[in-house]
């Protein structure tokens, strides 16, 4: 019974994932694309749950779908979301080449994994209940992968600074006579 449920969940989540992925690429309105991406992220969270990665699933929903996509939506709202009709004018040589490249990548990834894995992919390890729990993740972060933890925090810091700098208005300092007299008065 449990297996059957898992299968059903998987089918729903996988199709939702794939469908929303295609939708993101296909919609002309960027707003709709962003919403499709949110759906994609949600279905991915479900798939993570099925893979016993609870913490990652929660982080996905909170951080990715919650923060990052909201930021996307804010920017799209700010920019006005000009429609960009991707399929207008018929298929160009670029779309053919793109389809070809993407298709080639897909095929290759599958083939390579199939070739290299042999039959080993059919046996999964057995894991404890605490496999994907926050405690396990936290322990790993602070012992085996401490460097990754610290470096990631630096990356986030850099991104924060970059965001502030990119978004700041350039402050024009006026050294005209009125401003100067004001400045002098401050120093008296």
């Amino acid at each position, binding site marked *: 019974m449990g297996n059957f449920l898992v299968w059903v969940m998987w089918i729903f989540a996988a199709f939702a994932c*794939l469908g929303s992925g295609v939708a993101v690429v296909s919609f002309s309105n960027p707003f709709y694309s962003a919403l499709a991406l949110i759906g994609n992220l949600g279905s991915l969270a479900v798939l993570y749950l099925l893979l016993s990665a609870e913490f990652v699933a929660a982080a996905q929903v909170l951080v990715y779908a919650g923060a990052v996509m909201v930021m996307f939506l804010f920017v799209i709202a700010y920019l006005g979301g000009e429609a960009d009709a991707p399929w207008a004018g018929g298929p160009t040589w670029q779309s053919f080449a793109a389809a070809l490249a993407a298709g080639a990548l897909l095929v290759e990834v599958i083939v390579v994994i199939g070739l290299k894995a042999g039959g080993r992919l059919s046996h999964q390890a057995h894991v404890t209940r605490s496999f994907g729990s926050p405690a396990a993740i936290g322990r790993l972060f602070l012992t085996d992968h401490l460097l990754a933890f610290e470096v990631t925090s630096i990356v986030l810091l850099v991104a924060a600074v970059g965001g502030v700098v990119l978004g700041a208005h350039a402050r024009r300092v006026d050294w005209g006579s009125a401003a100067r007299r004001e400045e002098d008065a401050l120093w008296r």
Partner: protein
Amino acid sequence: MALAMLGPEVSWYLGVAAFLFATGAFGVLIRRSPLIVLLSLEIMLNGGNLALIAFSRHYGHGDGQIFAISVMAVAASEVVVGLGLIVAMSRKRIALDVDKLNVLRG
């Protein structure tokens, strides 16, 4: 108590991940608005994340999940900077169309 995995094997998840990656690549190559390109890029990253998590479950180590969390953090930072660029571009009245941004043309 060790549990076996229910549902499809890991290889199915890998298939989904591959498909997501290819879709995202297709989107990057085909769309003109930089915003949508960024979105497609997110899809590619997520495809990679899914593959990582799947393998982590397959081997029973948590390393893949750690990696996936780091990827998520990096993806978030990249989105911040990317969107900052796009906002700055639109403030300078530059057209948001990758086909028009060809100053590096040689």
